[in-house]
């Protein structure tokens, strides 16, 4: 009996060693993405884009780091679009899956708390889509591929003043969502700076999982704004716009980058046609590498990739570049993670499919935003590109 146990133990140890030997030739990257919950399409887009990139790299034999070539292994974990699950997933990817770096979470609601975990555990995390400044603020290990809300807010303000000749604005935002609340406040401050105090005539909010917005919209409509600013997730946008039309609102809406999911038009339909929102890239009318990505994604998955897909592509490529910048991995996870961070920080500029980016000290890219109009066919058509000053 004892012999058998020893034998089994030996076998087990052997297999463990074999396992780790095999693992040495792969690089694990974790994806902390919302595959279920409030914004499942965002997770799906991220996953599809990552799968495409993985197939490309592994198809060419793998990723060359220093003088060794590694196969990529991507681990997708569902954060259920919840802040607390995003934290748990980040912890799990770092401790149990032993990933080298993390891509995601996408929404700031999850990215802000998950960034804390990644930074504490000294693991590189890059959020493709998060625009809230807090995600990367004073966190040397956290990066992002999207522009920031302090930039996006004024872009929306200037565009609305220009396009709608608006003097009075109304805002409806989600109270429990860091992204929505942060952007709404930035928008309000900037609007009142440019149009005088009290020019945001209504500033209303709603709670998690709310489906009825009629009271807030009644207040907003009674305040007679020139347009309504909606920095909300696409699923809520669809409900809000419909209910506003039911209540007799005929004016325009202006949205933010959280509108830009491929699912927006399925849910919203004709109510959304003609509205504008600021986003990271415009799929209709893209050129060069961006067009190549869009065409391949569309051929493979049957729909035009949204901005999350494009940003995940860029974010993951940034991570791969950072890994290559290390000049070789040691196999010691702690050291390697630090090396990847330094590799990431040493990237000063990057030509992504969502535009060229330069990185500042906080790990935030400086890049342009585009404003798109939803056409009669439901496509997001390029209207205007706004770049940060001094670029």
């Amino acid at each position, binding site marked *: 009996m004892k012999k058998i146990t020893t034998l089994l133990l030996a076998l087990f140890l052997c297999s463990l060693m074999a396992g780790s030997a095999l693992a040495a030739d792969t690089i694990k990257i974790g994806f902390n993405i919302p595959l279920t919950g*409030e914004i499942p399409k965002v997770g799906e887009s991220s996953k599809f884009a990552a799968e495409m990139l993985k197939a490309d790299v592994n198809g060419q034999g793998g990723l060359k780091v220093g003088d060794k070539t590694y196969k990529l292994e991507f681990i997708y974990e569902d954060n259920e679009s919840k802040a607390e699950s995003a934290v748990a997933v980040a912890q799990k990817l770092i401790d149990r899956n032993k990933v080298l770096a993390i891509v995601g979470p996408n929404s700031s609601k999850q990215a802000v708390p998950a960034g804390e975990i990644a930074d504490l555990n000294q693991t590189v995390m890059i959020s493709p889509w998060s625009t809230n400044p807090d995600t990367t603020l004073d966190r040397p290990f956290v990066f992002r591929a999207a522009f920031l809300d302090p930039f996006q807010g004024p872009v929306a303000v200037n565009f609305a003043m220009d396009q709608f000749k608006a003097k009075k604005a109304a805002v409806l935002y989600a109270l429990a969502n860091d992204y929505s609340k942060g952007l709404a406040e930035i928008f309000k401050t900037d609007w009142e700076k440019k149009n005088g105090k009290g020019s945001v005539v209504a500033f209303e909010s709603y709670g998690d999982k709310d489906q009825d917005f009629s*009271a807030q919209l009644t207040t907003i409509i*009674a305040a007679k704004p020139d347009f309504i600013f909606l920095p909300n997730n696409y699923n809520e946008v669809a409900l809000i716009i419909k209910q506003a039309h039911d209540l007799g609102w005929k004016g325009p809406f202006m949205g933010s980058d959280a509108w830009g999911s491929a699912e927006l038009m399925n*849910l919203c339909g004709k109510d959304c046609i003609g509205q504008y929102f600021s986003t990271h890239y415009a799929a209709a009318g893209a050129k060069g590498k961006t067009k190549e990505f869009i065409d391949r994604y569309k051929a493979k998955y049957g729909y035009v990739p949204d901005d999350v897909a494009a940003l995940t592509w860029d974010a993951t490529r940034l991570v791969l570049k950072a890994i290559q910048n290390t000049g070789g991995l040691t196999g010691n996870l702690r050291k390697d993670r630090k090396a990847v961070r330094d590799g990431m920080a040493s990237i000063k500029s990057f030509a992504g499919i969502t535009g060229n980016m330069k990185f500042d000290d906080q790990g935030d890219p400086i890049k342009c935003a585009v404003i798109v109009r939803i056409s009669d066919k439901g496509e997001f058509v390029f209207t205007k590109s706004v770049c940060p000053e001094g670029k």
Partner: protein
Amino acid sequence: MDTLFQNLLNALQWGSFYSLIALGYTLVYGVLRLINFAHGDIVMVGAYIAFFIASALLGVYGGIPALPGWVVLALTIPITMVLTSVVGVTLERIAYRPLRRKGANRLYVVITALMAGLILENGNLLLLGASRKKFPELIDKVVYQFGPVSVTNLKIGVILTSILSFVILHMIITRTKAGMAMRAISYDKFAVPLMGIPIDQIIVFTFILGSSMAGLAGILFALSYPILDPYMGISIGWKAFIAAVVGGIGDIRGAFAGGFILGITEIMVVAFFPSSYRDLISFTILLLILTVKPTGLFGMPKTTKI
């Protein structure tokens, strides 16, 4: 002042949903003394059933020519109500009845109900995926404008339907033999079988009534807020339960009134206070109502028999 009338209409629509759902809670509680926590999820199931029936009748899946919208609606409502009550009755048969037979404590049945709700949510998630479904528009929306107040035909329909279904339900309970039996079981569960009343049949009948109300609420909800997801029933289900308690659980007049009270409170708080305080203020008001009248508005204090 203008917004007051508009908000009153909004509140009546929103309260209608709470009322319809609270009716289901209160029926089951009245007869079985069981808080059927899966009820909110049965509403969700009702909305999904309505979605598939409506899509099928609109010819989305092929097989039949597309019917006009109002015919689809007229057919979807009864079919959904029937199918949702099948779900409710099945739940009673496989989850609640075995426990009742074994004489399990009511606490266990309530926990079973919670679990049944989770199973419905996650079963749906597994079966249909996390992507939301967009409920088709069955009737052309008309916006009527009376001065500053706008109202859609759908909104009027929702309010009238909920009032009508309350009246019908009230008639069933007060005027029919089955209704009398339901009241009798609620009064004394042990003496009733001795009088030759088939208790199981009456319980099934109760679940049919409650679940068909949930199905109706599901369709109306899907028409008004046309984005469906597996968790849509949770929050509205919980709040409707609170509405039933405030009204006095076990009494359908209470559920009906409680639903509207909750709807009106929620909407009016948003109308007159900053909207971020909505839940805080509205539930404080409900708490005050319960402090003054712990059995709810229509509830009767009852001593437990040993």
